[in-house]
């Protein structure tokens, strides 16, 4: 079993984590007509906003309750109230996703009660706008936890409770944060090819896919899961959750509506995709369409062509737990070894399944220390400093990726995404191959 080693340093060096409210905001950005609202000081929002914009290269709606010194002392309810009303009058969103921050959580206010009071006092003004609260203090968790908090809160607040008449072709998919825009588009097409109707929550493919809206400026998200879709999640015949961090929202959905869930830790790799495709086949009663069979054959071929570049390669990965599992199983499945695995938290159950001897809870400073002698570094853009110092190529994954274009359009799941990943890695390996020299091959070299 994988050993999980706790953080041992006093100062984090080159953080791996982005904050929990940022993860929650990202989930809310997957809802149509939404604005996430950080309950904290303006800096909390500004930093997250800049980072999201640098990653997606899109205008990102994100607002702040702008807590100042006075509000920090006296309490932030007035600021929350004013922010909600201002957002409502200025942009009339369908959903406001409130994400708390460390500042207000340290004060320890009862936000749920505050919010209930505000909604009651302003029932008329706020009509037509759902307000959802995610408790996401920065001093706990990272993107994964924040994302899961927000999705759970969305279901708890919006989904209609009780058993309903099930639609035999409707599937609810709770997508993990590590799925890209391209992944979600591909997931939808795949599910639809079985004659099924997927509702994906959250759905970044609608809102952050880089399209240009038609001749108007939209101050909220445009595209994504609709509030109506979330209300009616209970009519799905099956829920599929992707990533261990999606288990809590899937369980809440099951508890509220009785919709059963199947959990996939990863949709990358031949075996996991086979399992997924089989499930779709059994739900729909339809055989796998020709296009899916063809893609499987292409993946088989990519495994054959690609494995030369993986066998015995030493890989160092730093990622949040579910993504770490997804990538580590992909690499070991291709014959590579994980010589360093660094993650953000010790609490996720998936960590014990990561195919590495040990997983360090830590930062990119730890990765740099452990990665000496590796053939490939795998982490987000901030790994660039370590890669440069160690002279090891960097494969950019996850968030943030701010120094490469198109990260949201990279496919990483199912047969086709696995094939693309194999090619990506093999190409990095080939681009960094060292030409043989007499010295490097000398059998007597020291």
């Amino acid at each position: 079993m994988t050993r999980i080693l706790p953080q041992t340093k006093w100062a984090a060096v080159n953080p791996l984590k982005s904050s929990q409210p940022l993860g929650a905001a990202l989930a809310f950005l997957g809802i149509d007509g939404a604005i996430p609202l950080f309950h904290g000081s303006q800096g909390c929002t500004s930093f997250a906003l800049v980072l999201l914009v640098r990653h997606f290269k899109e205008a990102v709606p994100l607002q702040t309750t702008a807590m100042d010194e006075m509000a920090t002392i006296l309490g932030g309810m007035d600021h929350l109230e004013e922010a909600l009303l201002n957002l409502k009058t200025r942009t009339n969103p369908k959903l406001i996703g409130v994400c708390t921050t460390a500042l207000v959580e340290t004060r320890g206010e009862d936000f749920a009660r505050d919010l209930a009071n505000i909604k009651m006092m302003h029932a008329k003004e706020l009509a037509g706008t759902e307000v959802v609260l995610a408790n996401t203090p920065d001093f706990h968790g990272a993107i994964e936890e924040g994302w899961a908090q927000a999705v759970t809160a969305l279901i708890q607040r919006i989904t209609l409770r009780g058993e309903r008449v099930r639609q035999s072709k409707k599937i609810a998919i709770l997508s993990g944060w590590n799925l890209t825009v391209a992944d979600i588009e591909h997931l939808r097409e795949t599910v639809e090819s079985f004659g099924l109707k997927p509702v994906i929550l959250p759905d970044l493919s609608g809102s952050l896919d880089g399209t240009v809206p038609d001749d108007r400026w939209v101050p909220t998200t445009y595209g994504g899961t609709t509030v109506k879709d979330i209300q009616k999640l209970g009519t799905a015949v099956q829920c599929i959750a992707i990533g261990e961090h999606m288990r809590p929202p899937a369980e809440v959905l099951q508890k509220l509506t009785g919709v059963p869930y199947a959990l996939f830790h990863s949709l990358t790799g031949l075996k996991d995709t086979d399992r997924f495709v089989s499930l779709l086949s059994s739900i729909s009663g339809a055989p796998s369409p020709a296009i899916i069979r063809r893609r499987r054959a292409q993946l088989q071929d990519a495994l054959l062509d690609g494995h030369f570049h993986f066998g015995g390669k030493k890989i160092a990965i730093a990622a949040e737990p579910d993504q770490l599992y997804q990538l580590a199983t992909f690499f070991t499945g291709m014959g590579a070894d994980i010589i360093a695995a660094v993650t953000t938290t010790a609490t996720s159950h998936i960590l014990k399944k990561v195919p590495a001897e040990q997983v360090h809870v830590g930062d990119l400073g730890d990765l740099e220390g452990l990665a000496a002698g590796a053939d490939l570094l795998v982490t987000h853009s901030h790994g660039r400093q370590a890669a440069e110092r160690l002279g090891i190529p960097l494969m950019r994954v996850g968030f943030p990726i701010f120094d490469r274009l198109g990260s949201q359009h990279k496919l990483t799941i199912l047969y086709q995404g696995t094939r693309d990943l194999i090619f990506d890695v093999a190409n990095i390996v080939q681009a960094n191959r060292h030409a043989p020299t007499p010295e490097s091959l000398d059998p007597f070299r020291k």
Partner: protein
Amino acid sequence: MPPLTAKIQDVFDEPACEKNRGKDAKARQKGCSKPLTPGAAAGGCAFDGAKIVLQPITDVAHLIHAPIACEGNSWDNRGAASSGPTLWRTSFTTDLTELDVVMGQGERKLFKAIREIKETYAPPAIFVYSTCVTALIGDDIEAVCKRASEKFGLPVVPVNTPGFVGSKNLGNKLAGEALLDHVIGTVEPDDVSPYDINILGEFNLSGEFWLVKPLLDRLGIRVRACIPGDARYLDVASAHRARAAMMVCSTALINLARKMEERWDIPFFEGSFYGISDTSEALRQIAGLLVKKGAGPELLERTETLIAEEEAIAWKKLEAYRPRLEGKRVLLNTGGVKSWSVVHALMEIGIEIVGTSVKKSTAEDKERIKRILKDENHMFETMAPRDLYAVLSEDKADIMLSGGRTQFIALKAKTPWLDINQERHHPYAGYAGMVELVRQIDLAIYNPIWRQVREPAPWEYQPAVEEELPGTHSKTETVHAFKKVVAQLPAVSAYVEESR
């Protein structure tokens, strides 16, 4: 009054600030922070501002005492350049957890973090930043820094700027105060000369100060300290021995400039390296101040010679762009155009300024804009994204120059855009920088993509073409081509067999 509150009051009442001088006593007391509107606010916090000012000091370890958000979401995100040390780009944070907050372990963790950094990286100094949460739980970073400094024998500088105290600009100024209280004047240099100057508020974005420094080198003027761009700790610590100073970004560090004049008799002027005439004026003023303070008077003449040469070269290069850029309409949308000489240079080669924001401009600035633009309708305080989008999509400007915040408004309106704020990738300072700016404007406007993205999709116009497309003609072609490929296949596999 708590020390931080007193400090903020002091910073707000800045006698050298033009805008502050223009206020009556009552308005002055209110300070210059505008109250933010919850749900409609933008911009960074005081901590952000402090870090922006101090972090470009390249050999210092910058330690952020906070939960992950303050540093985790923001590190290594600015384009200041270093000619040597890289430690400033390494991120250090105490990354407080729930347990740390609940158990009150913040100070202890901070102290041990300082020791760890000292032992692992041996920096000349460590700067410690407080933030909202650590201020709220009452961590006394000044005391911890003092103790650590004594114990570990290196300067540990507290930067007390929790985000909730105010805006980015306030943070800039408080950072200047931290330098005055703990750094500047703590080291005596052994190489003072009458040609030493300080440059204050220059960030060396995209390395642009390196376009200016050779001009000073040529004149025999030495930059004792550029604060903060590409600075070393010792440069800053001994900056009090410069003879004169130029203050580049006045809103950020005016308090620093004024107090250095008071304490160490270093006269300063406000200037800019953006635009041709401003660059020349800055060189002139630097030379003038140095001569007043004892440098040889022939410096003035050498300066004039250099200015004449460099201006001639720059104007000649700019003139080459006139045929392409004459009559092009520029919308300036930035906090406040400090350098009117950029506008002047653009207009000089025939570019029109169709609008400018005056949010951060002083009354005097506004007068100047009126004179230059001849039409005050072109001034606006701020423009809502929706309105800005409308202006741009109605084709009222050929390009917008602004910061990243409004980038996507321009791009989604399919309008050329150029970054002139801190995230930009091109150096614009000095004579060569002005030429580069105009070159970038030219490249942006004339990029062939604009015609392509503005073109409607084929199905949105020319219905005739749409009908023609599925015609039988092309179908035959495809089938024919496919046959050809099939016919070749056996030959290909035969070749493969053979080569084995």
